[in-house]
Each structure stands twice: as structure tokens, then as C-alpha cells.
């Protein structure tokens, strides 16, 4: 066996080589839709990471904004200005730049809140499934109560409480934290339930019993033996939850309890533009909306593909 294969290497070079040699990469290259979704997602990530260098204008630089440029339509329409490809809003900000900066905010909050709910959900799910008994019952009842409300309602509730406690109006950083907390805390249940289920299967397997016989402590068994074996589905859920978190953020911002207009996310842009939709300046709300829809669709398609690619029963 060993003789046929090349000497097994170590380190990340080998891991990368294996990845491009593996089933997942193969299935990725066989699906044009997934590749397109991957390209779009990559584009958004790129724009988010390098926004300030890529965007044609800085929409927050008050010195470069003039009211003379306000409410210009997209460049290809009559009265359009080639400097502003997607038009400008009523304060004369370039829509394209605002969307790039907005996606940056949306992705940041999406990622941070998914990481929060992932850590929380995986941790609670592991403990729940491994310990069982009263601990399990308690955690799962809390999860079920939370699951019986729409998650956006839970997020609104947490958001409202936090805003009541903290002075959010005057501190933009706090607004980020409040959004991340409220979205993260409202979405951990999916992770917890999935991880709990897989943990209950894994904990009865003989390799876990073997670790018990060696005398490894329960905490280490959870961390070293069970966790790596239950993480597969978590990756898939995390991808799909990323799309949901971005939508939740947009919803909260649209409802006016998200980020302030001074630091607009895609949701804030849509809300602000919504006021001018019927007075003819449709581009102020339609373009951020389309950008949001495209991002969420791409991430969702990636998540769907990942679910199928990692599911051995569908291969």
C-alpha cells in the first residue's frame, strides 16, 4: 500500500495538494453554477477586503461630496454621469462605492455573528449530547423555546434589550457589537441541534469507549475525539447561516435598528433609498437590493453545493 503511493508528506503543502486532488474540488469543477457562485462570492470577499482601494470614491469623505452631484441616475441613462456608474443618492454619494462599503459591513457582521453562533452552538451541542440527562434536557428546552419564535423576532428582542441597556446612539462601534450579538444569539440553535445529534451517535462508538478505558478525561474526549468527527455538517450549516445572517442584518438595518446611515450596510442603503423609490430615484434602493440578493444567492448556492458534496450518500 505504502509503496504505491508517493511518500506521504506533511504540512500544509500536502494538505493543499490533497484538496485539489480530492472529491470536493472535483465536484466543484463539474458544476458551472457552483463555480459562478464561487466567483461571485470571491468577488464580494475581494471587494470587502480591498474596498477602500477598489471603490471609485470614498462615500464617507465629506470633502469629496457635492450636492451638485445629488440624485444622478446610472451612467447609461439620460443625465447620467460617467463618474458615477450606478448613480448617486440624494447627498451626492456614489452608489457603487456605497454598495462596496456596504457589502464590507454586511459581510463583516455576517461572519462575526456566524462565528459567535457557531462557537456557542457547537459548544452547547457537544455538552448537551455528551453529558445527556438534565443538562441536555435544559439546553434543548431553551433551544426549542427559541426555535418556536422566528429568529428575526429573537434578534429584535435581544437587539431591543441591548439598545435599552447600552448607549448605542452615540457609539457606532457599539452598534456593530449589538448587531453581532443579537444575530449570533438568535442563530445558535441550528448548530447545537445538529452537533448534539452527531455527538450522541459518536459518543457510543467504540473509539470513544477506548479513550474512556485509557482514562482520558471527558473534556479531552469531547475536544480531541468527538469534535473533529462532528464538524463536517457544521461547515455546511455555517455557510447557509452566513447567508441568513446577512439577511438578518439587512432586515434589522432596514427596520432602523441596525447600523446608522453614517455607516451604512446594504440594509441601511435599502432603507434610505426606499424613501425615494416612488419619487423616481429607483437606483438608490434597487442597486443595493440587487447586490444583497446576489450575495445571498451566491453564498446559498455554495452552501447547497457543499452540503451535497460532503454528503457521502449523494455521491
Amino acid at each position, binding site marked *: 500500500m505504502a509503496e504505491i503511493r508517493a511518500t506521504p508528506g506533511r504540512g500544509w503543502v500536502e494538505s493543499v495538494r490533497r484538496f485539489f486532488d480530492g472529491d470536493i474540488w472535483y465536484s466543484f469543477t463539474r458544476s458551472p453554477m457552483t463555480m459562478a457562485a464561487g466567483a461571485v462570492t470571491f468577488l464580494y470577499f475581494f471587494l470587502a477586503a480591498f474596498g477602500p482601494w477598489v471603490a471609485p470614491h470614498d462615500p464617507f469623505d465629506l470633502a469629496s461630496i457635492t450636492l451638485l452631484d445629488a440624485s444622478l441616475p446610472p451612467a447609461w441613462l439620460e443625465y447620467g454621469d460617467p463618474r458615477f456608474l450606478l448613480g448617486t443618492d440624494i447627498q451626492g454619494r456614489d452608489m457603487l462605492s456605497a454598495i462596496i462599503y456596504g457589502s464590507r459591513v454586511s459581510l463583516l457582521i455576517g461572519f462575526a455573528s456566524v462565528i459567535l453562533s457557531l462557537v456557542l452552538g457547537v459548544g452547547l451541542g457537544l455538552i448537551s449530547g455528551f453529558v445527556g440527562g438534565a443538562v441536555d434536557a435544559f439546553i434543548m428546552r431553551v433551544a426549542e423555546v427559541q426555535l418556536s419564535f422566528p429568529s428575526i423576532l429573537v434578534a429584535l428582542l435581544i437587539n431591543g434589550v441591548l439598545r435599552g441597556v447600552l448607549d448605542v446612539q452615540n457609539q457606532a462601534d457599539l452598534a456593530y457589537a449589538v448587531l453581532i450579538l443579537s444575530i449570533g444569539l438568535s442563530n445558535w440553535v441550528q448548530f447545537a441541534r445538529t452537533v448534539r445529534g452527531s455527538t450522541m451517535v459518536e459518543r457510543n462508538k467504540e473509539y470513544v469507549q477506548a479513550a474512556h478505558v*485509557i482514562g482520558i478525561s471527558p473534556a479531552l474526549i469531547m475536544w480531541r475525539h468527538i469534535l473533529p468527527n462532528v464538524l463536517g455538517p457544521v461547515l455546511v450549516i455555517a455557510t447557509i447561516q452566513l447567508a441568513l445572517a446577512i439577511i438578518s442584518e439587512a432586515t434589522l438595518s432596514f427596520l432602523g435598528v441596525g447600523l446608522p446611515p453614517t455607516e451604512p450596510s446594504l440594509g441601511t442603503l435599502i432603507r434610505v433609498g426606499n424613501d425615494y423609490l416612488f419619487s423616481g430615484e429607483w437606483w438608490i434602493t434597487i442597486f443595493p437590493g440587487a447586490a444583497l440578493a446576489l450575495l445571498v444567492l451566491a453564498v446559498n448556492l455554495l452552501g447547497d453545493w457543499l452540503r451535497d458534496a460532503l454528503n457521502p450518500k449523494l455521491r
Partner: protein
Amino acid sequence: MAEAIAKTREARAKIRDAGGREVAMLKVQGLKRYFDVSAPWLNRVIERQPKQILRAVDGIDFEIGQGETFGLVGESGCGKSTVARLIVGLYGPTDGSIELEGRDIAGLSRQQMAPMRRRLQMIFQDPYASLNPRWRVRDIIAEPIRAFGLAQGQAAIDAKVGDLLETVKLTARDGEKFPHEFSGGQRQRISIARALASEPEFLVCDEPTSALDVSVQAQILNLMKDLQRAFGLTYLFISHNLAVVYHISDRVGVMYLGKLVEVAPAKTLFATPRHPYTRLLLDTIPDLDMTGRERMPVAGEVPNPINPPSGCTFHPRCPFANDRCRAEIPQPRPLGDGAIVSCHGIEEGRIPDGPTLQAPARPEGLV
């Protein structure tokens, strides 16, 4: 390796207690394990159901001497595996004692158990489930070495893992691979290497060959016999393959519904089975020679251990049962030739001696 082997054999001279008397490697007394399988409390109250207790192991006694192989046989669900898990501490016993080299280990906490664990390891039934699929083989085998601090430094651990892999007839390079790159037999070798890594004296083997291909079973059994000779290991060998048990065990215990019905030296048990259940079991061994011996058809099934029959639990299937068997629980009684049997009929002498049986054929490839 040879040096290490000589050293272990020396160290494994007869175990003696404080008074200088020899003590058994393992002594189990009145061991019981009940499981509560009742419906949830609310359902019980509403549906007026009583608590349901499953008596998986219901009071068994046996001893295993140093360097001995004790076979444990019985139908599925009779409690064999529960006994194995009780001994290695995966379950706490409901009652009774488990003495390893004279020290009671029953119901010890994880910390209290720690010094004894190294000497007591287990080989599992399913080699596809007993190795963590995400770990490399070298990490799997090194886990006990690290846990018990048996080697210091990466180089020493690697060397020890390599030695162990060669002991079970794999190569040191196999340590780099993942479990899915091996066949069932090879995985079971890895599992044995892990069990040996802590240099144990006593191995509990829970049907170590039953998940394997017949052609591989003999290889694993031969390996286990070699290791026993080399390291002076003591085995508790659980199986439902009677021919294998006959050829590998020194003494055999027959379990039925959580109780030991007969314990005897392997040769005695297979030549002159006493308990009606043992006779029934031995009649199920396929016989290629077709000696024309009259066989008892296997009647009935193992009763539900939640609600076992009164008296002797075997009476509904026993052709010799009478009123006493239905009412009174038989106690284990030693017979002259080392056999211990729990049966009213044998005690009263009303069950006729069966014919002396031929030993079961040696499984192909078993040395």
C-alpha cells in the same frame, strides 16, 4: 524487543498478596448490573406503568488466574459484553466486587482508577468503529503512551509506536496512515497495538474476531496467542464462536440471561457438558463428520431480561425442568472435576449423563 519481553515475563511472576498467598489476576464476586429502561417519569405516571429494570448481569462469580485465558460464551443479549464493560470500568456495577490482583476496582472514580487502568485494557469488537477515523494510526497508538507518561519526548514515543506496530506484524511506516487505509484485520491489529501500548497485564477481548472475515480470524487469534506467550498476558475472551473459544481458552464460562450457568476447564466443558443449556449450545456447533449423534433441536429464544422467568431462568426451554426449577433459583455448585454448575437437575442427579463429545474441529489456520 526480546529483552523487553524477558523483563516483562520476569516481572509477571505469580502475583501474591500481602500475606504471600497467590491471588487471582481477576476475581469477580456477585457482580450485578441493572439498567433502568423505564419510560420517562411523566409517561409512567400517566400510563400507570411500573419501573422497568433490565438485569443485564445478575450476580456472577468467577476467577481468572495469571496467564490464563478465560472464555465467556452465550447467546446474544445474555450479558457477555456488559461483563466486559464492567471489568474495564465503562459501567459501574450495581452490586458486587471486581478485584484486579487483589484490589477492588468496582465503582472507582476515574481518578482512583487511573493507576489500575494501565494494567487493564480492552480490545473491541468492531475494528471499523474502534479507531478514531480522523486520527493517524501513530496518534491512536501513542494516546495511551502519552496518557500514562510511558515515554518522554516525540522521538521516544515514535520509537515505541514503531515497535508496537511491528509487534502486531505491521510496519512502522503504517503509523503515518489513517484507519480507512487498512482492512478489517489490519485495523484489529492496530486496535491490539493500542491495547498493548500501556503494557497491560490483563486484556478484555470483546468478540475480537466476530466482525472479521473468516480467513483473517485465525491470523488475529494466532497473534493474540503469540502475544500471550511473549508478554504473559491474561485474557478474558468473549465470543459466540464455540470452536474458537474451545481452542483458545483454558477455562470457559457459559452465560445465560445475566447468570453464569456453568464454568469448567475447556476440555471438560466441551467433552462432558453438564448444564442443559451448555448441551444445547454445543449441539449447535456444526459437525462436518456427521457422527450421527442425536441432537437436541434448539427450542425457543432467550426470554426478556426485563421480566425473566421465575426460578431457574432456563426452565422454559429446558427439557428436564420440573416444579422445583420453576420455583427455586439454582446456586452454583462445584462438581469433582473442576466444573461449577448451577442446575437443580444436576445436583439431584436426575439429568442423565450425555455422551462424551468430540472436541470441535480446529478453525482453519489456527495454530
